[in-house]
């Protein structure tokens, strides 16, 4: 069994605000193998973005973390800023939802690409420029040489996102963290970017953690999927396991509550009643219980642990639910 590239154990993220403490992420365990594409899916309040940001120490000032994040035996959580700066960009790259978060509007593209190379890899100007051009070609930007002297505002949204992907990859990191990288893009551009991510991954062998609210995106690119709700992982497994054999009611609900092109139209969309909970006032017990069609009395008082789906069968498929056996209430109501 290969050594995991990233090992997260019992990660908790807390924010102190005027109105009290908000527990954004609770008890998250995650392993990422080299070259593996992990998708994290969740809605607003699920904690997915905060989880990602906490890995590289990028939380806001009022956030605090406990637990462990080990990158190749090095502890990243609450590490010194100097340590983290060595890692960011060089070993772990980041792609954000809004490309303008990463791009400086006052610097040319070329300058921003080569900056990282010269700082981290100590390349001279000529080598750095050549590498930058190669990278721009790799992300399928036409006219790579010309782009170097252009500024971010001269490019469209899709092109800018390609540049940020190029920036994230340019020092050849082992791992890329992507926070909703295609959410702000048109669907045809999103398809281009997803295709690009797939190709880059097989070409460079980079592991990816991609956070999104869109299950469809993960179906195109992910190897493994973790579903988050109210700050916890409620289901985790391979792509096929989670999509074809969901064992948590929330996962099942998500798959059915989305209008889908590949299913026959039904008169009424199945829904998940209620709304995601307020993180500062979580109920005791399972956070999803108020909305769950399978809830039992136990669910309202105890928090289900993230355990193997079938005890004894090490399949890597885990769920945080007391319900045993397969689900299927929603599937039987509607044609699949």
């Amino acid at each position: 069994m290969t050594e995991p590239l990233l090992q997260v154990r019992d990660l908790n993220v807390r924010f102190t605000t005027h109105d009290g403490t908000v527990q954004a992420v609770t008890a998250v365990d995650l392993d990422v193998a080299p070259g593996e594409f992990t998708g994290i899916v969740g809605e607003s309040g699920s904690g997915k973005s905060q989880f990602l940001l906490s890995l590289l120490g990028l939380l806001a000032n009022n956030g605090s973390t406990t637990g462990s994040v080990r990158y190749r035996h090095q502890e990243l959580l609450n590490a010194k800023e100097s340590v983290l700066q060595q890692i960011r960009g060089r070993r772990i790259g980041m792609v954000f939802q809004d490309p303008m978060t990463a791009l400086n509007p006052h610097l040319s593209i070329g300058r921003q690409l080569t900056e990282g190379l010269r700082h981290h890899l100590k390349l001279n100007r000529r080598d750095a420029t050549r590498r930058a051009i190669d990278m721009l070609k790799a992300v399928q930007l036409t006219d790579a040489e010309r782009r170097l002297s252009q500024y971010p505002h001269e490019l469209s949204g899709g092109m800018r996102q390609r540049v940020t992907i190029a920036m994230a990859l340019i020092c050849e990191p082992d791992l890329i963290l992507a926070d909703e990288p295609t959410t702000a893009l048109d669907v045809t551009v999103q398809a281009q970017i997803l295709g690009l991510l797939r190709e880059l991954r097989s070409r460079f062998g980079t592991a990816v953690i991609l956070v999104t609210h869109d299950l469809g995106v993960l179906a195109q690119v992910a190897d493994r999927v973790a579903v988050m709700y109210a700050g916890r992982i409620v289901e985790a497994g391979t792509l096929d396991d989670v999509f074809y054999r969901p064992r948590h009611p929330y996962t099942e609900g998500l798959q059915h509550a989305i209008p889908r092109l590949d299913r026959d139209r039904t008169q009424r969309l199945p829904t998940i009643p209620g709304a995601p909970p307020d993180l500062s006032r979580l109920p005791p017990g399972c956070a999803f219980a108020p909305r769950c069609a399978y809830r039992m009395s136990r669910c309202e008082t105890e928090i289900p642990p993230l355990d193997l789906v079938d005890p004894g069968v090490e399949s890597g498929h885990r769920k945080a639910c007391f319900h045993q056996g397969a689900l299927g209430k929603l599937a039987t109501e509607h044609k699949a």
Partner: protein
Amino acid sequence: MSTPPPRSRPLAHATAVTEAALTGADREALAGRSLWQDAWRRLRRNRAAMASLILLGLIVLAAIFGPMISPYDYYTPQWTLLNQWPTLAGGHILGTDNLGRDELVRVLWGCRISLMIGLVASVVSLSIGVLWGTTAGYVGGWVDSLMMRIVDILYSVPFIPFVIVLLVLFGRELILIFVAIGAVSWLDIARIVRGQTLTLKKREFVEAARASGVGGFAIIRRHLIPNLLGIVVIYITLTIPSLILFEAFLSFLGLGVQAPMTSLGVLVSDGVADLQSFPYLLIVPSAFLAVIIYCFNYLGDGLRDALDPKDR
């Protein structure tokens, strides 16, 4: 099933609202928490701002009631008690001025006049400025251009000679000073309000109001002005000090209120003359002036933080 408790966070607090299940357990309407209430709560946590508010309140109370309860008045000279130093033992706590008048009463009167000027001038400039700015900003087009060009032209009128001319022509009536200052300072507010209106007008809820059939003036009145008030209030608290100072400046030039009436500016101006021999005549009114200005500044800063809409 109980109704959801009032939340203080903007996230979902009504749990499990399904389309079908509506219980009638508690039919009373819950009180909402307006943005003003939110802002007030935030302001209360700001110690500097609250201290300033209290201090200003005390000064205002003293200015109103002080002269009433004091046995002395501000205008009767007492020839036997000229230039008395401040003593705690009986009589004139802050001493007397060069005509033997009680300094404390005169300073309190000075506060009264200065604060009134600040307040009245603000109200005048506010009324004109907000109406002017919102109309120009909302209507847009050539009306906007015309209105703002008028503002530009008035800006270029040299302010001090203008006030001097007014005062010379119409005499140094107290009212006139208020009006003169207010009539010139509305220009700033008009510009600020117009800028805010231009931004607000593009907000979706204004578009929604138009789609709901609400007419121009009603939109200004119901949607634009309430959403502008925050900026306006902050601006006012930060300009009252400058209005007070401006009056002080006029007084320094000898154009302020007529003697024996006094303002902080007049007192400071008089105090400078006697600085060598009787420094307290300068220190006391200056101290009051400084405190008032600091308080307004801290309060204005606190209001700006409290009303900052990004705190979500």
